[in-house]
């Protein structure tokens, strides 16, 4: 497997930020001398929301492991080739039971590189059998990382998977700085392979979406403007087609938090997020319609809470005890990182919220 590293995982470097309690402490206490950040719960309260409650559950987001062939500089999962946490088949079976029993319409598979989970293809086939809509958050380079993954485009197509593929920029310099040397070129090769089987092409039902996130300490620009520019540039330079572009704000978690602190941008970035708090995003927040499952089966309100080990506020917090009714009564767990999803036009795994 070819490995693309912009950095190594915090865990392998024994960085203090690898401890989630330490990260939460950083998020809640600005460095010496600065005034306290306004708390997210205060901002919610001022917007008339005392407790953030779930709405109708429509997505089970399954993080099948932290193993990845890349080590991106901004990764909120702290994923990489040195991570060993992988969801077992037993936990995946619990996920299937929950999807089936509660008729959850969408399963959103994420990682790490989800395709590196040895049970990935089996799980996809089972989800397909259940008739649910399948999304895969693919880093693109996995497709060209080893000949055994070269048939992934055909596999994705056969199971009508909606692809959410990471590409922070249409230029190699912006992409490789964030994701590792050579990632851009490999991503272009993979996109061409996906186009070749019909993904992203006109009159095809195979959806190829790109996920763009800023490669630095700034908020994403207007999503529709970025989509137009990505389409124009990728078509012009590489004859690549795709359906939609989704912009995701970088949340100050794990390696992006490390980058912010080391580059001296942490406080100004947090302040930017706080000042951009937009109450209009609250009704659309992804945590209100989804449950996130960790590699070991524990349940979270979103993938970001998962990385901070903030489990759902419910006695039934493991996939084997999945109970939609009990979960629907919970309060969604929030903390300072949540400002990332409420800033400006809002942000979610599906891009802008408004």
């Amino acid at each position: 497997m070819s490995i693309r590293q912009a950095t190594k995982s915090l865990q392998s470097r024994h960085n203090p930020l690898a401890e989630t309690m330490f990260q939460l402490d950083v998020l809640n206490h600005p460095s010496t001398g600065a005034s306290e950040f306004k708390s997210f719960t205060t901002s919610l309260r001022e917007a008339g929301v005392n407790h953030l409650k779930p709405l109708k559950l429509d997505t089970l987001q399954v993080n099948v492991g932290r193993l990845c062939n890349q080590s991106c500089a901004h990764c909120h999962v702290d994923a990489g080739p040195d991570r060993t946490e992988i969801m077992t088949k037993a936990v995946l079976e619990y996920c299937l039971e929950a999807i089936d029993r509660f008729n959850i319409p969408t399963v959103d598979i994420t990682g790490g590189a989800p395709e590196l989970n040895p049970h990935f293809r089996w799980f996809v086939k089972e989800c397909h059998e259940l008739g649910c809509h399948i999304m895969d958050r693919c880093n693109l380079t996995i497709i060209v990382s080893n000949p055994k993954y070269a048939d992934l485009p055909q596999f994705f197509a056969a199971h009508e998977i909606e692809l959410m593929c990471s590409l922070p920029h249409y230029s190699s310099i912006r992409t490789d700085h964030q994701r590792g040397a050579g990632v851009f070129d490999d991503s272009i090769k993979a996109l061409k392979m996906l186009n070749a089987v019909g993904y992203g092409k006109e009159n095809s039902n195979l959806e190829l979406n790109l996920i763009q996130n800023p490669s630095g300490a700034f908020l994403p620009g207007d999503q529709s403007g970025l989509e137009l520019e990505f389409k124009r540039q990728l078509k012009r330079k590489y004859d690549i087609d795709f359906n939609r572009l989704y912009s995701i704000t970088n949340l100050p978690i794990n390696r992006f938090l490390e980058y912010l602190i080391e580059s001296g941008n942490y406080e100004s970035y947090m302040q930017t997020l706080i000042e951009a708090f937009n109450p209009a995003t609250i009704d659309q927040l992804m945590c209100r319609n989804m449950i996130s499952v960790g590699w070991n089966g524990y349940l979270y309100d979103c993938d970001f809470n998962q990385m901070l080990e903030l489990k759902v506020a419910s006695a039934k917090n493991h996939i084997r005890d999945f109970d939609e009714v009990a979960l629907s009564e919970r309060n969604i767990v929030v903390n300072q990182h949540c400002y990332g999803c409420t800033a400006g036009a809002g942000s979610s795994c599906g891009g802008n919220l408004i």
Partner: protein
Amino acid sequence: MNQKSYFQPEDLKKFGNITEFQEAMGTKFFDYYNEVFREGALTAREKALIALAVAHTVQCPYCIDAYTSDCLAKGSDEEQMMEAVHVSAAIRAGASLVNSVMMMNQVKQVAM
């Protein structure tokens, strides 16, 4: 805060406060400003690149700070941004050099 510098990056965030001393004119200015930078016949990304180039011509550190971030956010990369600054520099240099035609005319007029 560096007391020895006239330029304070924190002041950029206070730009909106100029209405404090002249509300009517300040408000009209910001309405106009926001209208100018809206998506139009030119994209918002193209306008940000023009703003970045002009910022270098007028040598406004606040504008350079603001439009560097804005260009990145709107999807421009380093190469495009530096090309925009070169456009600005080329026009500046050209503006000097084109006037040398006058110098040349004068030389030809008065010199043997």
